[in-house]
């Protein structure tokens, strides 16, 4: 197991290298100039050229890449062209929102998706199953943009239970109660993914429940509860864990839309606005960190397989 993890971690290096090259090249192939964005629409061409030069953007792309790459190796992701702050502090200031939102979103996914899936499988072809299937089809089909605005109109504008948008830090005034700002966004993010998890859990469970050893367990007179939770659920854990791991990454990626709709200061929205501002260093930083996170979560999932299923040995 130990050597496996070391090998996998070493394997991250070429992957990250590839990601960094691709991320850099992509950014620089989009037309647009961050100097023009910063100076505003009425700046003269000479002024834009002067600032472009000062930002070091008129050099050949490979030289810019080389310089950026060595900086990154030393832990320096550069400075945001728009905010004139270090990229790490720009990303860092958004991390709280993204982490909390992904965590809450994940809670919605697991707490809603998993039980619904299990119940549907166990009560197969009953009305509960039908209702849960219909709801999950609807949930998976609704565009998150629309779902977000709908939740906002009902629960924030009409009923006034939650704030419409924004998120003051839990470390600021208001403390932990500020989490109420994230309830609607977490539902927006969680519901479509919970629906997917419901369907996946249901089909994996159905497959397992038809196997012989389940019949044996039932025949032994074990209580239904033990059969389902101990014998069946644990054996369908592998696909479910994979889905949950990838959902975590998807939650971060989908947060782009949710964060925009709810005006949350998260990393997803930072990506969108950095693209529009052509803030290359921030984008490269975010892409690199996201790729790292993706590979890391993947690794965690693989390690978890080994722990859950004694038959898997690395």
């Amino acid at each position: 197991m130990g050597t496996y993890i070391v090998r996998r971690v070493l394997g991250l290096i070429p992957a990250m290298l590839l990601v960094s090259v691709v991320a850099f090249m992509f950014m620089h192939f989009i037309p647009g100039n961050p100097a023009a964005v910063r100076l505003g629409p009425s700046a003269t061409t000479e002024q834009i050229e002067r600032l472009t030069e000062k930002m070091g953007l008129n050099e050949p792309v490979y030289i810019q890449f080389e310089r950026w790459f060595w900086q990154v190796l030393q832990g320096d992701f550069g400075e945001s062209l728009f905010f004139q702050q270090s990229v790490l502090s720009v990303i860092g200031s958004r991390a709280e929102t993204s982490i909390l939102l992904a965590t809450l979103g994940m809670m919605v996914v697991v707490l809603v998706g998993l039980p619904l899936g299990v119940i549907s499988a166990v009560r197969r072809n009953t009305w509960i199953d039908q209702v849960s299937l219909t709801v999950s089809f609807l949930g998976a089909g609704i565009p998150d943009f629309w779902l977000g605005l709908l939740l906002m109109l009902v629960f924030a504008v009409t009923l006034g239970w939650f704030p419409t948008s924004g998120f003051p830090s839990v470390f600021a005034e208001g403390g932990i109660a500020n989490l109420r700002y994230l309830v609607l966004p977490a539902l927006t993010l969680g519901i479509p993914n919970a629906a997917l998890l419901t369907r996946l859990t249901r089909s994996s469970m159905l497959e397992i429940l038809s196997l012989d050893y389940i019949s044996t367990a039932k025949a032994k007179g074990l209580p239904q509860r033990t059969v389902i939770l101990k014998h069946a659920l644990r054996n369908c854990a592998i696909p479910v864990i994979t889905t949950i791991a990838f959902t975590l990454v998807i939650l971060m990626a989908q947060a782009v839309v949710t964060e925009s709709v709810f005006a949350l200061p998260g990393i997803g929205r930072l990506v969108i606005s950095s693209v529009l501002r052509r803030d290359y260093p921030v984008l490269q930083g975010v892409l690199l960190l996201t790729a790292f996170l993706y590979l890391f979560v993947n690794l965690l999932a693989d390690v978890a397989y080994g722990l859950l299923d004694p038959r898997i040995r690395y």
Partner: protein
Amino acid sequence: MFKKVVLGLTLVLLVTGLVGLAQDAPKYGGTLKVAIFDESPMLDMSMTTADLCTLIGHHVFEGLFEDDGNLEPKPHLVDTYEMSNDGLLATLHLRHGVLFHNGKEMTSEDVLASLNRFIDYTPRGPLLAPFLDHIAAPDAYTIELYLSQPCGALTAILAFTNGGAIIVPKEIAEAAGDEPIAPENCIGTGPYEFDEWLPGRHLRLVRFDDYVSRSGEAFGYWGARTAYLDVIEFIPVPEVGTRVAGLEAGTYDYATEISADLFDQLDSNSGLQTLVVNPASYPYYIFNTKEGIMANVKMRQAILAALDMEPIMRAAFGPEALWDISGSIYPPSTIWYSDAGTELYNQANPERARQLAAEAGYNGEPIRFMTTTSYKFMYDMALVGVQQLEDAGFNIDLQVYDWATVVSRRVQPALWDIFTTNDATVGDPSIVCWLSDAYPGWWTEPEKYRLVEEITATVDFETRFEIWEEFQEFFWDQVYLIRLGDYYDYYAATADLKGVGTDSHPVMKYCYFWNVWLDK
């Protein structure tokens, strides 16, 4: 008995009157939450012409002159000024006792350093630079501007809020140089000072308690300013639906950049008020006169002949309260309004268009028409216009990009023939941005230079107006760009916000939150 009744009635009347008065009387306190559509690139409003920066920055910084509600420049940090007879020396007498946010009194050395920085490094500096020989500060409260040639637009340039010539302490101006002043060093003389900027969350300004106001009246950006609100928070909310929902739910008190199609919904909501900006701004199609098919004036005239403005303006701006058909470069509420040359505007004559195109030797070559979906109205006004042009026999290659891409492509003359954009009405014709040579479109007709130079160098208004009318005729004849009409932008605010949209506080392009208060 009768006496008692009279006394009672008088008392009741007095009390209700007082209550009424109290309701209308300005109130101190409260936090105004303003939903804006994006982050400002900086707080130093002299270093960028981005509108968002001006909107926030002009609460913190002030200019020597400010535009009043009719966009007429008036002395603001300057008390009085005079111009020499030859028009080559402007002497500005500064107001005494004006304090910066750091408690220091503003003197001529601060003004000198700020103006020098404005001219050397800022995007608007080149407007003033060609006229200026040097600046002197003979004493603590006097500034002398020595000009190399008379400049009719001097006060208009100094009053121009967007990318404005702001006054900051000498040490800050000198330390910043060509870099934007960092937010924590953004020290001005305005009624609000910088407090906190959390990107993605808010930019917060708080009342500057020692603000020294101009005495007397107020009109538009100019005049006496009182900061009734304790705090103003500018909150970036990218989705228009969220800005509006937040306004309806009371999360925000004020929202900007709301699409025209939501106007009727907001206008009919009794808890809200819609605030229509006047003077209007104007959307336009601009031509590449340097390279390609549109360098031919006959082709530009052909395009102009084909267009029917009403459907274009309706598609782009919706409710009729928000737009007008007008060929005057300046809208009706300004002193520069004129109908000279406007018979060529809004011809809606495809036959004439075909004829002019034939005269130009047009053979169905593709015309590259750039627009953007970043601003919905630009996309809409392009779609309808392009349809009309195609009906008149033009072969249009419609290219749709995000705005940053349009900005980077439009500086390359080989890439386009027409693009869509818009502009706000500015105080003086000589500072209209598309008149600059550098502006994409590259209008270099000798007659343009003659008229622009004449109007800029002339000081007397009557004469300047005559030259302007001559210019406008030339403008519609040469069709460097096609002004589509007047567009009245609007803001929406909670009905609790008082003091806005009054005679002394008209709704202007950059909303301003002094002299307004919350009555909650």
